[in-house]
């Protein structure tokens, strides 16, 4: 019931954010209607810097519990996997919509400035995280991935601060700092943040439930195999 209400509320808030971003807020003075990419680009890209922290916390919990309480460790591991995949989804969107805005605004699809490079590095780190989990043959894949995710989280504040620390092609902060966004644009920004944050939590919970289902199926298959082998011995 809570899940259904959350899903409906999320879709309603996203519809409001789309209406605000495309139809209601005025066109920006310099770029005109092209600037409307901003609302979903910035919100998705920023959430790509939030979900990695959930992954980091879940990974630290996994490392803490993996010997002390393996069942809790499995739960933490499922949250870590779900948040890593959701991070990749949001960072991918940040990269794609950023390129779609950069081409008409700067005349180039990509440049190796500090913001873009550290953000691409973040995407590569979380893809590496999934690859280590999937293909490590040591039996320690989840532990290695958890350690990797702690290192990956270090890239998040560097990416966030890159436009303040270095001179970049990417604009300086517009939601904070000197070049503040005009008040007339804020409703679209806030509705978009709310909508995509709710969506992110929703799909992360779905992915967590899927991983828990897979873990239980795996545990049952292992226990049934042990029982079958014991019956054979008897």
């Amino acid at each position, binding site marked *: 019931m809570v899940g259904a209400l959350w899903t409906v509320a999320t879709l309603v808030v996203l519809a409001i954010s*789309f209406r605000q971003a*495309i*139809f209601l807020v005025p*066109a920006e003075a310099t770029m005109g*209607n*092209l600037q*409307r*990419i901003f609302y*979903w*680009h910035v919100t*998705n890209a920023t959430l790509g810097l939030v979900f990695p922290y959930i992954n980091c916390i879940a990974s630290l919990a996994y490392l803490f519990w993996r010997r002390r309480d393996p069942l809790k460790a499995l739960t933490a591991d499922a949250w870590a996997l779900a948040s890593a*995949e959701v991070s990749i*989804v949001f960072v*991918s*969107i940040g990269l*794609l*919509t950023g390129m*779609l*805005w950069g*081409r*008409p605004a700067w005349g180039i699809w990509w440049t190796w400035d500090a913001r873009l490079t550290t953000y691409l590095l973040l995407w590569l780190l979380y893809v590496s995280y999934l690859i280590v989990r999937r293909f490590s043959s040591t039996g320690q894949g989840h532990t290695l991935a958890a350690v990797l995710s702690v290192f990956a989280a270090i890239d998040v504040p560097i990416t966030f601060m890159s436009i303040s620390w270095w001179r970049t092609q990417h604009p300086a902060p517009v939601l904070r700092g000197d070049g503040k966004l005009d008040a007339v644009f804020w409703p679209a920004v806030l509705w978009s943040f709310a909508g995509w944050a709710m*969506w992110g939590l929703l*799909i992360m919970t*779905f*992915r967590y439930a*899927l991983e828990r*289902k*897979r873990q*239980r*199926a795996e*545990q*049952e*298959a292992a*226990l*049934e195999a042990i029982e079958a082998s014991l019956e054979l011995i008897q």
Partner: protein
Amino acid sequence: MTWHTFFAAFGNPYLWYVPTAYFTVATVQIGYLAWIAVQWFRVPRRSGYLANER
């Protein structure tokens, strides 16, 4: 913008990036959700072993 100008922007060499960006966001997010849904039905059903049903 209106619905008409939003979709008409696809034919504008300067503005086609706007609807494309919004459709890209929707496609990636809904695509991931669809992948989760497909995987949900691919994971084997629980036999009930862990729930002491046997």
